[in-house]
């Protein structure tokens, strides 16, 4: 504590510590590896490696793991004879993209509203909270349907609808945390120096609230992915010809007994990705809580 001389530049030290902590947690490490794999797949797809993934009705429902085919067909082909690998990659971009953008949108708006509601309270706070209560009370299905019906079934609209329905959780957490942080002594100290509300929110409250929001966001990426897949499964989310994992499951359902791989792989992908985000959220929590650091370290030594 007192005389630990830290000569290393802080950013590097932090990065090194994060890497060490990551290696110490095998589950988190696996998650990162999986996400990187998915990312590579997406990049491969967008850069056209799967080009020629055209409809080919003769290759319809080709079974997977037949290594005698072209490598693109190792995961089998879908109902229109396109390589499943390419479809999975394209769906990954939609599914993860939707989840990330949705969460980004809702985390920013939700945090801002939560900070405002928590710090100022009063009428604005009450208004924000009631509004978020009402949003929470709604069946998301209905909201999604209305949104998609009114504004057309596009990915953008899906993102907006999902972002709105996810926002309340951020508002609540940000508000609760703000209420707590607001009472801490260092906030009082800043006030004694003459810090105004925005100064305090920006410099003192936000930095404390942000890691919690980040953790929540990570969990929420997982939730949104599940949710989007559910909506798409019901035909209320991503619409063909666009494709997402959820939609692939829905489409694969028709081939449940004839070509199980059509529904199996996208479902597995949803599960692994969701799990990765959850595990990373866990890991992130531990990394951000010094009292739990020994967990990471102990594992490293074993």
């Amino acid at each position, binding site marked *: 504590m007192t005389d630990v001389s830290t000569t290393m530049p802080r950013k590097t030290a932090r990065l090194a510590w994060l890497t060490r902590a990551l290696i110490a947690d095998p589950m988190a490490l696996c998650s990162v590896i999986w996400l990187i794999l998915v990312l590579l797949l997406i990049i491969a797809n967008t850069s056209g490696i799967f080009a020629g993934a055209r409809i080919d009705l003769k290759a319809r429902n080709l079974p997977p793991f037949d290594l005698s085919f072209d490598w693109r067909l190792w995961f089998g082909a879908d109902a229109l004879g396109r390589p499943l690998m390419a479809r999975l990659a394209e769906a990954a971009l939609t599914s993860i993209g939707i989840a990330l953008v949705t969460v980004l949108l809702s985390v920013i708006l939700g945090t801002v509203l939560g900070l405002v509601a928590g710090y100022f309270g009063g009428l604005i706070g009450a208004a924000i909270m009631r509004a978020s209560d009402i949003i929470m009370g709604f069946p998301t299905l209905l909201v999604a349907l209305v949104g998609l019906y009114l504004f057309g079934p596009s990915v953008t609209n899906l993102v907006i609808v999902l972002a709105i329905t996810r926002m309340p959780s951020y508002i609540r957490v940000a508000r609760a945390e703000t209420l707590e942080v607001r009472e801490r*002594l*260092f906030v009082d*100290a800043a006030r004694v120096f003459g810090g105004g509300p925005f100064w305090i929110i920006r*410099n*003192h409250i936000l930095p*404390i609230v942000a890691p919690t929001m980040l953790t929540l966001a990570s969990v929420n990426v997982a939730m949104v992915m599940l949710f989007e897949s559910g909506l798409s499964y019901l035909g209320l989310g991503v619409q063909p010809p666009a494709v997402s994992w959820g939609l692939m499951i829905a489409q694969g359902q028709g081939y449940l007994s004839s070509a199980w791989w059509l529904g199996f792989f996208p479902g597995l992908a949803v599960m692994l990705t969701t799990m990765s985000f959850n595990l990373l959220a866990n890991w992130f929590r531990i990394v951000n809580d010094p009292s739990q650091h020994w967990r990471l370290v102990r594992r490293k030594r074993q």
Partner: protein
Amino acid sequence: MTAPLLDVRDLSKHFGAGNTPVRAVDGVSFSIAQGETLGLVGESGCGKTSLVRTLLRLNAATSGHAMLDGIDIATARGAELRTMRRKMQVVFQDPYQSLNPRMRVDRLLSEPWALHRDVLPRAEWSSEIARLLEAVGLRPEHALRYPGEFSGGQRQRLGIARALALNPSLLICDEPVSALDVSVQAQVINLLARLRRERNLAMLFVAHDLAVVRHVSDRVMVMYLGRIIETGPTKTIFSTPRHPYTQALLSAVPTPDPTQRGKRNRIVLQGDLPSPSNPPSGCRFRTRCWKATEHCAREAPALMARGPDPALLTACHHASG
């Protein structure tokens, strides 16, 4: 005699509305002169922190006034408010809570200047930070660390350094050493004493450790359940207290001298502090007082000189006895 630096008249702070508000501070009056240190002692929950926060305008006063160098703390606005903020600074009790853990020390210490742009040009911040750190016994290179990397005593020094950044004339210390170890506590007390001498600081020094208060203060106030029950020069209060509560308080402090064991005349008070939302009628101490009579229940005693020393003010009907 010049006007006091801080003048508090009939200040009250009640929490909660309705018929039973918590009367955390109830009609308190006192003043602090330039360069003077006033000690404030009392049991936990008696309203010390509430008073401090009201003075700092972190709470709105329920009634009464507090004037800092002619500025009414409760109503100051604009330039007046800025002046007031500059003149009065605070050191909090908990050195772990009062520094933002995610701010590096240099940002922490320069925050006052960032908020009061006219005080110090930005170019001079870093040299001034070094000076401040040295003034509180830390090293300039500490500016690059985070609060989490300091020990409790060092953090409290950081808190003090930050409070001094605007060069205030009044420093309010809310139990600045209660959370510190004995060996470190002495360092901080000495530091405060030195700074006070060097800068002619006036201080309101809040503590529940009577020994520390005795060591630090020029004058002492004893608070009980939101009221000042006795105040006077440090010497008098500690040698010949007149209020039964002050007497009990003093006698309850264990002496670090085993040879005195069993020889002192100790008064062990019975019971706990009554609830501040429903204080006893008349004298608030009467429920635990061995001298209490009918009279005490009926009438609240005024704070006034009741003995040979005119500077010792006591709020007790039986103080002269």
